[in-house]
């Protein structure tokens, strides 16, 4: 009996000694081995291996919660009013400012990754009334798990292929942004599947093979949350996505970048890249798209090495014990405790939220002013180009300069507008960019006035919302109606579309 007692005590003591000698490992990520194929692109295939990660991924389906300036309800960004269709923080001039470009048909607040394929199939920007989408297959690039496979199968021919061709191949749940875009299916190591990000990093000398874990925790997001453009055929594979980073990440540098890489022969803009020509002011425009990575990288958090995942994929303990990275990508204001307090442990959640809103409120205010001035600039150039009175001797040059300022002013505000943090990712840069935008748009107004010897000045006086009313309704369907086109003075510069029925409803063909 005594022997048994002694043995038990001894064993317990031995365990205790061993426990007490444990060396704490370096932050090594756990390694995995799945039986999945390297080319696996179905989200559901990963579910059995990683059920709790998958559970947090499915939380992306919640599209009901807003924060103050962000959130997940996919309301129309230009509509002012009540959720779910509109919101109190709206940008009423978006349709005016993007007139003649697909963004004027539909542009909504982003929601969870689980909706990406559904939403790209549903959006009115892509022409569902025709066998021709009007936009290339590149539009699948940041939506679909099948893109790495397509890129391998078709190579650079993929980009310019017909978008509609791939609709039916897509399952809206299984192929929406998911596991394989950021993970090696076999080992689950972080990986970069994005063709344009690999290209862009190679050009600017960022070596992905030697990227640290901390860097990868942002690079996986930089695959998509960046500004991009589709390559002009003159410079390589047509419609291939390119990130315009060789001169730098910021509005001034990317604006300079876009003075190349186009094929226009238009006077004053020879060789410049053009996304579309604004029909009202006849200005060659560039469109900014969600430059989260560029905004973040030299902001207070980004410059300090705090990654996207630090705030957007905080560690959670679903079973109350082991940590996993939350795969619910949404506003961290919905989970300040997990996201912010792992560093700012001395602060209260309400205080942190107020600090976020402090930046966002000011950014929003200046964004509104910048967009109003941008509308005024388009209107000034429109009036100047139709001005019947005596023109300035230098009229043509002044008009070129005015349009260049419109382009620049709009590029700057769009860069902030399209970015999804309402300034928080980089408060100083957001405000600086909007202040610059306002200056450039005002210069455009001044130049247009000078070109007409200030003859148009009286027409620009007063409240801009009365001079140029915001366009509330516009879509591909509406542009088929003359009645609709008669409702706003700026619509007179749009062609009437031919009547047509829907060909596509999501991934189903509805008519021939």
């Amino acid at each position, binding site marked *: 009996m005594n022997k048994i007692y002694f043995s038990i005590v001894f064993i317990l003591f031995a365990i205790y000694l061993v426990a007490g000698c444990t060396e*704490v490992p370096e932050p090594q990520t756990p390694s995995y081995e799945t039986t999945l194929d390297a080319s696996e692109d179905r989200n559901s295939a990963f579910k059995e291996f990683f059920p709790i990660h998958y559970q947090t991924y499915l939380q992306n389906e919640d599209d009901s919660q807003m924060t103050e300036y962000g959130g997940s309800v996919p309301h129309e960004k230009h509509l002012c009013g009540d959720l779910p269709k509109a919101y109190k923080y709206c940008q009423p001039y978006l349709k005016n400012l993007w007139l003649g470009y697909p963004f004027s048909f539909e542009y909504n607040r982003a929601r969870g990754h689980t909706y990406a394929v559904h939403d790209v199939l549903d959006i009115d920007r892509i022409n569902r009334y025709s066998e021709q989408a009007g936009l290339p297959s590149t539009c699948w690039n940041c939506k679909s798990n099948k893109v790495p496979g397509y890129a391998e199968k078709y190579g650079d021919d993929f980009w310019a292929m017909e978008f509609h061709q791939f609709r039916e191949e897509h399952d809206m749940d299984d192929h929406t942004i998911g596991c394989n875009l950021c993970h090696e299916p076999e080992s689950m190591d972080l990986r970069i599947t994005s063709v344009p990000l690999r290209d862009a990093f190679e050009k600017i000398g960022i070596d992905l093979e030697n990227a640290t874990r901390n860097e990868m925790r942002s690079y996986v997001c930089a695959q998509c949350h960046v500004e991009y453009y589709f390559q002009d055929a003159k410079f390589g594979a047509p419609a291939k996505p390119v990130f315009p980073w060789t001169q730098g990440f910021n509005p001034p540098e990317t604006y300079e970048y876009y003075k190349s890489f186009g094929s226009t022969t238009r006077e004053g803009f020879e060789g410049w890249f053009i996304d579309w020509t604004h029909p009202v002011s006849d200005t060659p425009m560039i469109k900014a798209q969600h430059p989260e990575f560029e905004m973040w990288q030299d902001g207070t958090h980004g410059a300090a090495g705090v990654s996207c995942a630090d705030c957007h994929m905080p560690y*959670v303990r679903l079973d*109350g014990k*082991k940590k996993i990275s939350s795969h619910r990508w949404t506003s961290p204001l919905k989970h300040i405790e997990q996201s912010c307090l792992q560093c700012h442990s001395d602060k209260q959640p309400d205080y942190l939220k107020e600090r976020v809103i402090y930046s966002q409120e000011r950014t929003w205010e200046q964004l509104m002013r910048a967009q109003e001035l941008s509308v005024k600039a388009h209107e000034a150039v429109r009036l100047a180009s139709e001005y019947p009175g005596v023109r300035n001797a230098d009229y043509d040059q002044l008009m070129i300069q005015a349009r260049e300022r419109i382009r620049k002013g709009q590029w700057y505000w769009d860069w902030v507008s399209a970015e999804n943090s309402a300034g928080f990712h980089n408060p100083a840069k957001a405000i600086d960019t909007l202040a610059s935008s306002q200056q450039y748009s005002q210069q455009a107004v001044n130049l247009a006035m000078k070109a007409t010897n200030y003859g148009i000045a009286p027409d620009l006086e007063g409240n801009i919302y009365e001079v140029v009313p915001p366009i509330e309704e516009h879509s591909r369907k509406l542009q088929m109606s003359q009645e609709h086109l008669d409702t706003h003075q700026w619509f007179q510069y749009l062609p009437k579309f031919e009547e047509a029925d829907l060909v596509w409803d999501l991934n189903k063909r509805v008519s021939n």
Partner: protein
Amino acid sequence: MKRKEGISLTAVLAILLVGVALTAGAGFTMKATDQAEFCGSCHLMYEAVRTHQQSVHSQLDCNECHTPDPFIPKMTFKTYAGMKDMYKNTLGNVYDVIHATDSTKEVVNDNCTRCHTMTTLNVETVKPHCTDCHRQVPHLRTLPIAQRRVADE
């Protein structure tokens, strides 16, 4: 009579030896359970130990900061904290982000001033805790997450 005295001397010696052994054992145990090697035997504490090892305080035991210094308060604090941590680790649930309790914050702060009295002798410290200025001392908490944490811990 003589024989009896001999027996009692042996008994006293034996008791003394046992006493010394027990005291040494208790001392050893107390010391061992103050140290990062012991605290870090729970995965939940990996981050704390990892950041401790990188810090200027890496040569100190965890409990030179985390328990009171005087013997009696130390014993009671250790017993209570140890039992609570064991409960949380086994039957309870652990928060997503682990924070120090108010009592731990006070204990830690007292230990700051215990060792660094001379430095602050001639100044008035106005913030509630030393770490309100010396912000990296609480486990390098402003380092990017990748330098502190990994999954599964």
